Structures are given as C-alpha cells and as structure tokens.
C-alpha cells in the first residue's frame, strides 16, 4: 500500500481567541476520494488553506506526499490542483485568459487537448471562454474553477465545495470527472455539505465539528452505523414478539405494520417473520445523511476511526 497523499498531524489553528482547528490528525491515502464534511465554520476551509500554505497552523503539521506544506510549499503545490470555495476571478478577464494565466503558473504544462476535453465535458462553449467573466453566471464560474483545478491533471485535487452552484447535469459531469481522476490514480480531497454527493463519490469521510475531527471512516461503514430500515406489512393482525433478535430495534408497530431498524445480518429477522402472514416486505439501505446528521449535533466524540481506504 502506498503512503499518504495528505497527512495531518495534531493540526491546530487559532484566530485570537477563536479556535478554528483543534488537534486534527488524519491520513488520506493515494488514489482515494476523501470527503471532508462539516457544518459552516467547522474548520474545513481552514484545513484546506493550511494545506495550500495560505494559512499557517498554530500547532501541528500538514504534509502532502511527504513534503511539509509550510516549509516546502512550492514543491507541495506543484502536485495539486485547487478549487477554492469562492474563486476570485477578475471580471474584466476572459475565461480563456484566466485559464491561460493560471496554466502558466502551474508546474506542469497544460495540454490544450486535455483542457478542451474538460471544457467540452462541462459544456463550456468556446464563445463563452472569450467573454469577460463579469458576464458569467455562478455556475459558469464554478465550471471554470473546476477546469483550472483539473487542467494540468495534478496527482492531488483539493476541492472546496466543488458542486456549489452547479445544476444537476453538471454535478453528474463533475462526478464523472472525479471518477475518471480516481481511475487514473489521482487523489481527491473534497469538502462538501452535500451528503448524497459524498455518498456517491467518496471512499472515506472525515467529519469536523467545531474544529475537531469527530468521525473518520469509510463511507460504507458509516452507512452501516445507521442500520437498514425494514418495513413489514401483514395480511392480518399480528402480535409483536416478546423479544427481538440482536441488532434489531423496533421503530414503530401497528397491528398490521412493523417498522424495524436492523444492524447487521437480516437472517434472524427473516426467520422471525417467516412464520407470520407477510403481505409486503420493504428493506431500505441507510443513507449517510441519517448518520451524519446525528454527528453534526451530538457532542460525544466517535471512536470509529480507521485509515484503511474503502475497497
């Protein structure tokens, strides 16, 4: 297994009395898509800005591909593409001039054909590229931001709220671009509020709350924390059993409908139901949202932490 693409070690950042980050440690492995979650002000953007050396940590250390982000900044940034949460483009510059300028500042030469493919995939017309950016909509600016981050095909992509302002079709196009980057062995570190998006594209997630990392886990393991929701309808009135199998919680019962939450295997529940007059059985996979909303509000720190990427 390769080393970490990103390593945060006891990272802390204070702005005067305000603690923006507190003792954050995590590894993001090469080739994985990592979702960095948290509510507004949780510290996601501060972490990203430390990775880019735009902000200096108060304590701890951040490194990318083994190089310290603060002491070897240019070397680190030569290997990453960055999409800021609010890209600051000059309104009087055209999209093309902006991409050219940022491309010239990159470490590697931008392949025009590769850039053209990116623009094409994001449905960015050549005529739009020649317009001043003050005429761009929020979505167009976001698409241009994605292109500037991906155009030199760097080994690491750091994306801050990448789909903010994109329409659903462009969101799909973006997810495909992320998937393609991953297939090429690129690492993606993205912050997001959009949990279905994280569920769809990320291998692992880290969740920040109040500057602290409260959850670090593969996505499928987080989902399993919520358990599957099982809804059983009966053909006639049935009496609930006195005891339920392990890992099975009763959510709601009526004489003809049971709603259960099942953690782990479904077998014992199916055995229990087999002797009863089932009319319908609906098993729903849990959504990340169900689990994470809990962590957004809960105060206890979660023990589930692993550095193993999802397969």
């Amino acid at each position: 297994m390769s080393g970490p693409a990103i390593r945060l070690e006891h990272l802390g950042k204070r702005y005067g009395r305000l603690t923006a980050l507190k003792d954050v440690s995590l590894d993001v492995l090469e080739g994985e898509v990592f979702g960095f979650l948290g509510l507004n002000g949780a510290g996601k953007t501060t972490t990203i800005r430390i990775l880019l050396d735009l902000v200096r940590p108060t304590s701890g250390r951040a490194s990318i591909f083994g190089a310290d982000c603060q002491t070897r900044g240019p070397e680190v940034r030569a290997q990453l593409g960055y999409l800021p949460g609010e890209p600051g483009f000059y309104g009087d510059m055209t999209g093309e001039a902006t991409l050219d300028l940022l491309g010239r500042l990159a470490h590697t030469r931008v392949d025009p054909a590769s850039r053209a493919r990116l623009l094409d995939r994001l449905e960015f017309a050549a005529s739009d590229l020649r317009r001043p950016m003050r005429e761009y909509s929020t979505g167009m600016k976001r698409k241009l931001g994605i292109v500037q981050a991906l155009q030199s095909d760097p080994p690491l992509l750091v994306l801050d709220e990448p789909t903010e302002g994109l329409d659903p079709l462009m969101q799909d196009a973006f997810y495909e671009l992320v998937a393609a980057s991953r297939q090429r062995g690129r690492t993606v570190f993205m912050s997001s509020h959009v949990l279905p998006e994280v569920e769809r594209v990320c291998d692992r997630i880290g969740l920040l709350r109040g500057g602290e990392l409260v959850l670090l886990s593969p996505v499928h393991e987080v989902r399993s924390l919520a358990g599957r929701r099982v809804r059983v309808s009966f053909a006639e009135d049935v009496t609930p059993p006195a005891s339920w199998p392990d890992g099975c919680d009763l959510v709601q019962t009526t004489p003809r409908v049971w709603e259960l939450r099942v953690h782990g295997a479904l077998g014992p529940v199916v055995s229990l139901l087999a002797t009863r007059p089932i009319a319908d059985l609906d098993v729903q996979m849990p959504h990340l949202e169900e689990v994470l909303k809990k962590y957004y509000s809960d105060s206890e720190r979660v023990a589930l932490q692993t550095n193993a990427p999802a397969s």
Partner: protein
Amino acid sequence: MRSATLVLAAHSLRRTRPIVIGMALVLGGFQFLLTQVATFLLRSGGFSLMPSLIPDFLRQMAGPSMLTFMSFTGVVAFGYFHPIVIASHLGLAIAIATEPAAEIETRFADLTLARPMVRHQVITRTIVVLVVAEAVLLLTMMTATWTGLACCTPADAPRPELATIRSLAIMLGTVTLCWGGLALAAASAVRRRATASGTAAVAALATYLLDYLGRIWDPARRLSTLSPFHYFEPSSLVSGAPLNVRDVAVLLGIGLAGVIASYAIFSRRDM
C-alpha cells in the same frame, strides 16, 4: 516554465496598461503645454512683469525661490513638481503597490498562491510593475518636455539643460517609489485595498502638508524632516544645483524599508 514573477508582472502590466498609457499621455501633454506657456511668456515679455504682480507678503513667504520659478526654466520645470502631477504619480504608485491587498480581497491570490510559487514573488511582481509604470511616465514626460523645447521654442530661449530635466524626473521618480514602497508595506499587512491605499494616501497628504508647514513656519521646520517630501527639493534643481544624492538616498531608503517590511510581513501572514 516562465518565472511566476514574470507571468504575474506581465499580467499586471496588461491590466494597468490603459491607465499608465492614459496618464503618460496626459502628463506628457502637460509638459509640452508648459514649454509653450514658457515660450509665450518669453515672447510677450511676461517674465519681467510677473514679479511685480506678486504681492510682497507672498514673495516674502515663498522666499527667493519664487523668482526662480518666474523664469523660462522655472515654468518648463513646473510640471515635475506641480502638486497635481505629484498627486498623479503617487496615486498611480499607490494603486499599483496595493495590488497584493486587492488580490487577497478578491480572493484572486487564492488561485495564484495555490500554484508552485513563493509568496515573495507577489511582492517582487508588484515592484517590477511599479518601476516599469513610473519609468514609462517619466520617460514620456521628459520626451514631451524635450520635444516641446526642440520644436517650438525660439532658438535664443534660455532652455534648461537636459541634466536639469533628468534630475527633476529622478527626484519625482524617487519620491514616487518611496511612497510606492510605503504603500506596498501597508498592502502586505491588510486584507482590503481601500484600507492600504487610504492609509498611504492620508499619510502622503499629511506629510506633504507637514513639509509645507516646515518651509513657511520655522517652529515646524525640525518636525518636517520626518516628511519624505522634505527630501524632495526641485527648487534647488531649477536654480541650477546638482541633484542632491543624499536626498535621493533618503527617499530610496524609506522606500526600500517599506519593501523589506512588505517582504517580511507578506511571507508570514495568513491570506
């Protein structure tokens, strides 16, 4: 790959090109106009009448240097220390020097500094643009002065020497670069261009007035040595004195201190 400094400098020069060219044309036109005003006054005998038109109290307040300015050379040279000309130069210098703050404010710096470059390249870029823009202004002004003198003045006119015009331009350039350096220091420490440019502009105005006060009111003379404008002495150049190297060194020294401070602050700050 081209140096990031050059890429950024080219980008900034492209963006400032319209205003630099526009100002160069206006200031160049002003210099040319002054040569024609001087020629008119020479032909009409105005220089001999002018001293009698000035009230005594004003002449005493301004000192003997006033008579220097009531000459062909004085009128031609006036364009290098006219308050509006000085304000134009300082205004452009402050606008250019505060670009780092503007880039942080607009978040354009997030995009550029996320590239493999070091922070001091942003400051170096700004200095390059500042020097190039100021050089363009001064060369245009000198060219306009010399064109006006060469083409449209009588052969017997007491034209100023090229060295005098050059010294005046150097003096104006050094005071501009001095304030450019100070504005750059301000811009490297704040997040808003308006804060940096406002601070630099207010400081420039205050020290200009302090210097003026020191020239007309003895008790303020000592305090006025704190003003960079104290070392901006065009009147002695107009009366034929050579360029005061000490004054130039002081002005460049202040500017350099601002530049060094800006390198130090910008490399340590959070963006």
